[in-house]
């Protein structure tokens, strides 16, 4: 029986569990905007008449949660007027990841009609929280 080994075991378990709690709390939670802009240009499109909010999803080729995120956002955009979902692969578009300061995939950055960042989420977003976060921008008055 190694005393220092037992101490190291205790430390490793505590560190891993604290990290696990931090990651779990952060995963999928809506965070404040990091001040990015020009979302529509990065997505390679411009908002048409009804479009109010862009959900720009950054994904990577090997990433199971990216596919779950895409499914959640496709469904959300499908049933929400004015909400647009665009997915970019960071392998094809490293410039977009750099521009937005994104290290982890999936990360979703929401932009308003002017292209100003509203919020961002890393991990699979909870649809209700995401929708609540962008709702003020969605209900903005329609352009004439």
């Amino acid at each position, binding site marked *: *029986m*190694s005393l*220092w*080994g*037992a101490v*190291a*075991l205790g*430390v*490793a*378990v505590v*560190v*891993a*569990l604290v*990290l*696990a709690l931090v*990651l*779990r709390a952060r995963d999928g939670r809506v965070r404040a905007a990091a001040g990015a802009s020009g979302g529509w240009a990065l997505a390679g499109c411009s908002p048409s008449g009804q479009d109010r909010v862009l959900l720009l999803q950054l994904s*990577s*080729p*090997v*990433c*199971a949660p990216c*596919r*779950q995120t895409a499914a959640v956002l496709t469904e959300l955009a499908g049933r929400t007027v004015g909400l647009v979902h665009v997915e970019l692969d*960071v*392998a094809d578009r*490293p410039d977009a*990841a750099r521009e937005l300061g994104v*290290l*982890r*995939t999936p990360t979703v950055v929401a932009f308003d009609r002017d292209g100003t960042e509203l919020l961002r989420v890393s991990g699979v977003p909870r649809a209700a929280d995401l929708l609540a976060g962008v709702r003020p921008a969605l209900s903005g008055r329609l352009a004439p």
Partner: protein
Amino acid sequence: MATPAEPPVDPRGVRFAAGVTTVVLALVLLSGSGWLAAAQTVVFALGAFFGLRFAPYSVLYRLVVAPRLNPPAEKEEAAPVRFSQLVGFVFALVGTIGYLTGLTVLGIVATALALAAALLNAAVGFCLGCEMYALIQRLRTRNQGATA
């Protein structure tokens, strides 16, 4: 490393393997046995160098655990998981060398680091080695883009 494309893997199997790894590494720390550390190093090496279908804990999962569960709802890419086995291999190898050469502190520290990463994966499914793989892939494509 991941030249022949491997079929996608059941993420529950990956977490199961991480759980077994955690238990084995905990026994290494408690017993101070360099030979047990060496055995875990071989386990990592099989998965990292020959593919996940040869990784002993994955085989155990496929033969014993998976038949009792529903089919997986989703699968994940093998390449990042295989890379994480390589990272585990490096830490376990350093730990083994530490224990067997009398550098016990090195053995303890390297084993404890590997254990923390394995426990993180087993507990919440966060695979540190897989995240490293994704970042390295991105840096690699960025550099290719710059030189092209």
